[in-house]
């Protein structure tokens, strides 16, 4: 038995133990004993086991690290969602199962990505069209018009555009590094951001913009580009604060949440109460107050997680994310292939920005803009996209990190 496989086994059993305890607690919450959470826990553990064996047997060097780390996140998310809304948890269960399948398929198939790396024009066009279609046919949802409905299935195109955006960016920048090329690329990024801004999806717009900056910097290595990019972001932020009421509301709620607690700053104040109430060790699963927190299964899931599991678990979750991101960056550094390097760095940064923006937002570190917490929040589009991005990272990492 290798050292690595021993690590994996310890991690896997820790994950099992965590899930068993949590789902048992959920089952004990009602009297008489409710077996449904147990079934879900066992079902989820079965899926993890199948996924794990598949990864270990068929993957080149049996790298199961990203798979296990992401399932820690999905697991805690699923437990929280079950605790908040049982119905949602059944659907999330299916999304996670689908996500794991996507992850495994992409892990195997993405090694044939070579010819995709020249199709940036088509991919970029596709992203823009998808976002434009959303604006025309989109449905409003929680203040943002970023949902599409096709044959009764609702999804968020901006989530899938994340994948396209990373592919387009990497394939273009890998051999277009001149200032003129950067200008063209900036045009593309700004179009994406503008389309998202029109949908009032501020958080996602900022994620794309920042990821664009990372792509340019990684490709060129010139510090001037990120400097200009951040200056543009600052100017854009000030301008939209002055022009758009919905941007102003978010900033004001951040600067002084106490001015209008029942109104503008309702979300952030409820989130802070929850995080504060949890303390280091939490109130215990099922003993918090998710009913006070808006969007508790999606954007504000971190708040209820900290309330019930405590800040220590919250910090552990942040560290799990960091492990995933750092591992991807290390794989990128170990590689000598420009496409791989750009894709790994870009995708990892994109997930990192998303994580940072929502955790920073719900804790009032930065203004709150609603985006999902990758792997944890409820949502099919979010789960599938996150697993797809992770699959790409995993596929490219295999053989790079020992």
């Amino acid at each position, binding site marked *: 038995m290798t050292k690595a496989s021993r690590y994996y086994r310890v991690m896997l059993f820790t994950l099992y133990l965590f899930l068993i305890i949590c789902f048992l607690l959920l089952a004990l919450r009602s009297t008489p004993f409710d077996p449904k959470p147990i079934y879900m826990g066992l079902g989820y553990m079965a899926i993890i086991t199948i996924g794990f064996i598949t990864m270990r047997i068929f993957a080149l060097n049996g790298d199961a690290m990203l798979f296990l780390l992401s399932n820690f996140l999905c697991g805690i998310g699923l437990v929280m969602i079950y605790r908040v809304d049982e119905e949602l948890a059944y659907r999330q269960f299916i999304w996670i199962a689908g996500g794991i399948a996507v992850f495994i398929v992409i892990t195997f198939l993405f090694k044939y990505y070579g010819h995709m790396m020249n199709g940036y024009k088509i991919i970029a066009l596709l992203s823009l069209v998808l976002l434009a279609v959303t604006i025309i046919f989109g449905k409003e949802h929680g203040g943002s018009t970023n949902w599409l409905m096709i044959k009764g299935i609702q999804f968020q195109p901006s989530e899938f555009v994340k994948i396209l955006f990373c592919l387009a960016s990497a394939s273009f920048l890998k051999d277009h590094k001149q200032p003129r090329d950067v200008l063209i690329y900036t045009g593309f990024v700004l179009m994406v951001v503008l389309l998202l801004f029109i949908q009032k999806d501020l958080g996602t717009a900022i994620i794309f913009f920042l990821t664009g900056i990372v792509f340019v910097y990684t490709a060129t290595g010139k510090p001037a580009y990120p400097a200009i990019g951040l200056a543009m972001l600052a100017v854009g932020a000030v301008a939209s604060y002055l022009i758009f009421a919905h941007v102003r509301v978010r900033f004001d709620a951040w600067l002084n949440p106490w001015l209008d607690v029942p109104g503008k700053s309702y979300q952030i104040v409820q989130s802070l109460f929850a995080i*504060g109430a949890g303390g280091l060790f939490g109130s215990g699963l099922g003993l918090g107050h998710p009913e006070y927190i808006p969007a508790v299964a999606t954007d504000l899931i971190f708040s209820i997680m900290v309330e019930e599991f405590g800040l220590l678990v919250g910090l552990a979750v942040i560290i799990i994310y960091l492990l995933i991101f750092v591992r991807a960056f*290390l794989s990128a550094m170990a590689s000598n292939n420009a496409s791989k*390097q750009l894709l790994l760095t870009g995708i990892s940064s994109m997930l990192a920005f998303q994580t940072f923006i929502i955790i920073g937002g719900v804790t009032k570190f930065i203004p709150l803009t609603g985006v999902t917490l990758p792997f944890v929040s409820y949502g099919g589009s979010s789960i599938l996209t996150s697993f797809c991005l992770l699959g790409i990272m995993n596929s490219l990492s295999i053989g790079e990190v020992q």
Partner: protein
Amino acid sequence: MMKRNIRNVLISTVLLFSLLIGYLLYFEIFTKDTLLTSDYNRRLWEEENKVTRGNIVDRNGKAIAETVTEGNKKSRVYHGGASIGPLIGYNNKQYGRAGIEAAYNKELLGMKTKDPLTLFKQDILGIKGRGYDVILTIDSDLQETAYDAFGGEKGAAVALNPKTGEILALVSSPGFDPDDIDKDWEELKSGKNSPLFNRAVQGLYPPGSVFKIIPLSASLENIDDLYDLTFHCTGSTDVDGLKIKDYNGTAHGNIDINRAVEVSCNSTFINLGLRLGAKDMEEYAGKFGFNKNLDFDLPIKTSVYPGPSSKRELALSSIGQADVLASPLQMAMVASAVANDGHIMHPYIVKGIADSEGKVNYNRQDETYLLPISETTAQQIKDMMVNVVKKGTGTAARISGITVAGKTGTAEVAGKQSHAWFIGFAPADDPQIVVAVIVENGGSGGKVAAPIARHIISEYLK
């Protein structure tokens, strides 16, 4: 080489998340606690549902506020009607808390004095806790009598035991019945007589002639031949062109200090104030507790004696006018210095905290708060105050068989009827109770405030 760039991205990412973690720890350690006590936090009320709120009882063990449990329903019931409202306050999910209910919320919920281990055990075992009882120094019968004596007029009264500092009654009129807070909220909140406002400790008024105790103390201790002086009163005094009249323009003629106090002669006290000077006046006002933040069981307003910057201000301030402002509690403290041989005991209203079995967890100790005057001075002022009630402006406070000492005040208010004041104590040779009474825009202190004080004293000493 792209590897260097990636390394920089990695470092930036780790830094960014380290900042976030640092911020979260800072939040946990420093900002969390103040945040959680916000009235917007509904978790606090959840906590409250788990415990039975402790009772508020008076000095004789009579419940003023109690939690009544009927089946699963808990309700807060108050005894004492409108007389206790501004003092006890209310505890309401919708309107928040006030008064003792607010100031001692944590004790009443049993959150403050229980050690974390006990709380943890109760949590684990699911024991529905009971908060602590708060025992007041208030005599609820006296409180009601005093409140009724106002007959709905705007005003306030403070009665205390000068030897201990225990507040026996703290009345603000008009009050409100805490039982009716839900029903009457809009009216109470917008009511022009502000019934929610505790005038006894939060109201600041020009004290007028009751303030004369302070220049009198300063004169007794600083002017050697005070008793030999003769003051000439023409009913009006000219200070730098400002004519300050005596009450009703009465000319008291040639009088000594004893008579000046009995008739509350403004000319004499202006004369004394100018003779003492701003420095002495300010010093003595400070000695009696003006301009000093008192640590009290309820939120209070500090009484002010602004250092006079002109002769006119000095003259006016020595008869308790100009910008001198005092709360009824402050004036009760002034009287208690005279009653208690120069000692002002630290006033308090919460005597102790006890658990449901009656075990007292906290017991307030008496302590001297200020020592503004000597025992001799106190005795001299006491003699004069006895005469005020016997044959001066305060005859309306006379009680047969009891020697009452007092001082009246009629504080002028621009464009309105004067505030009527009375401060005093009884029995003069062994004071058991000090009272300070104000009737807002009530007119003459001797006619309006003194009878209320008389009522309170005779009820307490009967």
